C-alpha cells in the first residue's frame, strides 16, 4: 500500500496545472463571460488528453485510470474550466469525436425522479446531448430541442436553457451502463469539487495574509486563523476521499466502490461549499462583490452539487451501504 501520487501522476497533475494557470486564468474567464464558449480552448483540452484520458490506447486514447482522471479533474475544477468537460470525458467511448474534442458532448442526469425544471447546460455549444435515465443512456440531437435561454444563469460560465420536454433519443447503453456513467461522473465531479475547495481556501488564505485591519494582517486574528485551519482540514479529508474513490474504481478489490464514490461526493461537496463560503466571508465587503472571484467558485459548486447526485443523496447511499453490511 502506497497511497501517494506516483511520479507519473505528479507529472500529469503538474502538466495540467501549468496549462490551466496559463490558459484558464480568472481574467481569461472574465473575457469568456462576454464572448461565450471557447472552441479553441476545447481543442487544446482535447489535445492534452482530457477527454481521451481513460480511453484505451487501442481506441486511440491515453489509457490511464480513474485515479489519474480524478487528479486531472481536480485541476480542471481548480481553474473553473468551462464547458461540459465531465460529460465529454465520460462519452469518449460512446460518441464519435468526443475523445478528440471534435464533438462537444453535454448531458443531463434524470436517473432520479424529482420536479426540477429541465435545464440543459451549454445547449448552444454542444453537438450531442446524453440523457441518463434509470434504465439506460440515450443520445439526443441538441438541434432538435428548442428551449428558452436563461438570461442570467446562476453560474456565469454555465449557460442553461430550459426545455419543455425531451424527445426520445437513440439508445446508447442499458441500465448498467447508466449506473456506471453516474458512478464515474460522481467521482470526476468530486475531483472538481476538491480543486475548488483548494482554490477557494488558497484565495482566502492569501487575502488574509495581505489585508490589514487594526494595524495588522487579518490572518493573525484567531477567528480567521481557525476558520482557515478548518478549511484546510476539510480539504485534506476531501482529497483523501476523492483519491480513494479513483483508486477504488481502478481496483475494486480494495473496497466498496459505491461507498467510496459516494463518500467522495459527500466530503468534496461539503469541503467545497464550506470553503467557498469562508472565502466570501474572509474577503469582507469585497467578498460580496462580483469583482472578487470568490463567488465564481461558489456558483460552480452549486452546478456540481446538482450533477450525479447531491450530498444528501450520496449520504443516504453510504448509509444504505453500511446497513447492508449488518
Amino acid at each position, binding site marked *: 500500500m502506497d497511497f501517494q501520487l506516483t511520479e507519473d501522476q505528479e507529472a500529469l497533475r503538474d502538466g495540467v496545472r501549468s496549462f490551466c494557470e496559463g490558459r484558464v486564468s480568472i481574467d481569461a474567464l472574465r473575457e469568456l463571460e462576454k464572448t461565450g464558449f471557447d472552441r479553441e480552448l476545447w481543442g487544446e483540452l482535447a489535445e492534452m488528453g482530457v477527454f481521451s484520458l481513460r480511453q484505451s490506447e487501442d481506441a486511440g486514447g491515453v489509457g490511464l485510470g480513474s485515479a489519474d482522471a480524478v487528479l486531472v479533474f481536480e485541476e480542471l475544477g481548480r481553474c473553473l474550466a468551462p464547458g461540459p468537460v465531465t460529460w465529454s470525458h465520460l462519452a469518449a467511448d460512446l460518441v464519435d469525436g468526443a475523445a478528440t474534442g471534435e464533438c462537444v458532448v453535454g448531458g443531463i442526469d434524470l436517473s432520479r425522479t424529482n420536479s426540477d425544471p429541465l435545464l440543459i447546460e451549454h445547449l448552444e455549444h454542444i453537438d450531442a446531448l446524453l440523457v441518463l435515465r434509470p434504465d439506460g443512456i440515450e443520445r439526443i440531437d441538441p438541434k432538435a430541442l428548442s428551449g428558452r435561454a436563461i438570461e442570467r444563469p446562476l453560474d456565469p460560465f454555465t449557460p442553461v436553457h430550459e426545455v419543455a420536454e425531451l424527445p426520445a433519443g437513440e439508445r446508447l447503453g442499458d441500465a448498467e451502463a447508466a449506473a456506471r456513467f453516474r458512478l464515474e461522473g460522481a467521482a470526476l465531479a468530486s475531483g472538481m469539487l476538491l480543486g475548488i475547495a483548494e482554490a477557494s481556501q488558497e484565495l482566502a488564505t492569501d487575502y488574509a495574509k495581505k489585508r490589514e485591519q487594526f494595524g495588522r494582517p487579518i490572518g493573525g486574528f484567531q477567528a480567521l486563523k481557525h476558520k482557515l485551519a478548518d478549511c484546510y*482540514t476539510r480539504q485534506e479529508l476531501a482529497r483523501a476521499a476523492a483519491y480513494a474513490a479513483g483508486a477504488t474504481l481502478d481496483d475494486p478489490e480494495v473496497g466498496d466502490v459505491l461507498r467510496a464514490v459516494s463518500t467522495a461526493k459527500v466530503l468534496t461537496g461539503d469541503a467545497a461549499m464550506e470553503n467557498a463560503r469562508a472565502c466570501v466571508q474572509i474577503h469582507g465587503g469585497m467578498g460580496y462583490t462580483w469583482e472578487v472571484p470568490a463567488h465564481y467558485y461558489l456558483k460552480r459548486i452549486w452546478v456540481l452539487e446538482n450533477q450525479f447526485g447531491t450530498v444528501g443523496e450520496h449520504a443516504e447511499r453510504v448509509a444504505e451501504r453500511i446497513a447492508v453490511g449488518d
Partner: protein
Amino acid sequence: MDLRYSESDEAFRKELRSWLDSEVPAHGRPPSEHDWPARREYDTAWQRKLYEAGYAGINWPKEFGGRDASLTEQLVYYEEIARANAPYVGVNFVGLLHGGPTLMSEGTPEQREKHIGPIIRGEEVWCQGFSEPSAGSDLAALKTKAELDGDHYVVSGHKIWTSFAQVSDYCELLVRTNPEEKHRGITWLAMPMDLEGIEIRPLPTIVGSSEFSELFLENVRVPVSCRIGKENDGWRVTNVTLSFERGTAFASDIYQLQESLRELTRLAKVLTRDDAVAWEDRTLRRDVGHLAAELDGLWALVKYMVSEAGKTGVPGLTGSCVKLYYTELKQRLGDLSLRLLGRASLSRDDVGGMASETIVYEALQSLSMTIAGGTSQIQRNIISERVLGLPREPR
C-alpha cells in the same frame, strides 16, 4: 496510488487475526473503570501476552523488544486490533506511546536498560506529570520547581489531570529548574511514584470515574540519575516525543469508531420514533451516512498520511488535522447516539439488547478528547501557522 496491501502485509494480518481470535475471548471482559488496581492487572496482563506473542511495541525498534513493523503493517495491526475488539492499551498508554520512545531517543544506556524492557513487558506503568492547574495549553508556563541538592532534585508543586497516577510506578515529570527562562528552564525527570512527599488525590471526571488524579509534591527528593536529557533541556525532550501522540496514535481509535457507528445503525433498526422504526427516517439515515462518509474519509487520510511519512521519514503536520477532525467527529457521533436513545439514556439501562451504558459513557468520555493532547484550538493554531503560514499567536 496503490491501496492494496502487500502479500506480506496480508500474511501478517492472517497470523495476527488468528491469534486475536483465540486470545481476546480468553482474556475476558475488562473490570469496572472504577477499580483501578484490577484495571492495571487486566491491562498489564494483556500487554504481557502481546509481548510474548511478538506483538508488543508494534512500531518500536527490535533492539528494544519491539516488532519494528512497517507503517503499512502498523495500519493492519490497528485494523485487526479494532476488529477483534481487543483490550485497549489502557494504563500502559503513557509508557508505550510516550515514555518508552522518549527514553529510546534521549535516555542514557543505563536508563534504557532499567525501564524499556519493563515497559514493553507490561511490568512498569507510567503516568504523565506535565499539566498544572495554570499550565495546560501553555504548558511551558509550568511552575513545579526542582532545586538541586547534592545528587537529588528537591521537587515541590502541583500537577493535575494525571491519568492512572494511583497505579503507576513512574511519572514523566516536567519541572522548572530555571525560573528566569520559560522554555529553556524546564527539566524532564522520570520520578518513581513511591517517593516520600507525593500525595495522589483522585479527581472524579464527568463520566463518574476516577482515572484522573492531582499530584501534590512536597519536597520530593528525586535522584539526579532520574533526569532524562540535560538540565533545562526538558522542553526539547518533550517535543521529540509529542509528535508520536499526533501521528498514528489515533489510527486504532478511528477504526474503532466504525464499530460505534454500526452499533448506532443496529439501534436505529430496533428503536421506534414517531410510530415508525427510527431507520425509516430519511433525515436520520442521511445523518448516519454523513458520519460514515466522514469516518471513511478520515481513515483514507490516515493512509495518505502514513504513506507520506513512509516516503519522507517524518510524520507530517496532517497529524493535527486528523486529531482535530477525529475528536470532533467522535463527539458528533456521541450526540447522534444520545438523540437516538432518547429518554432511555437517562437510566443507562440496556435498550433493545444494546448497552446504553456504553453509549452514554462514550458520549461523555468524548468530551475530553478535544482538550487532551493539545486542544482543538491549539491544533487549529498549529495548522494555520505551520501549514498555511498565517501570522503567529503571541507567546
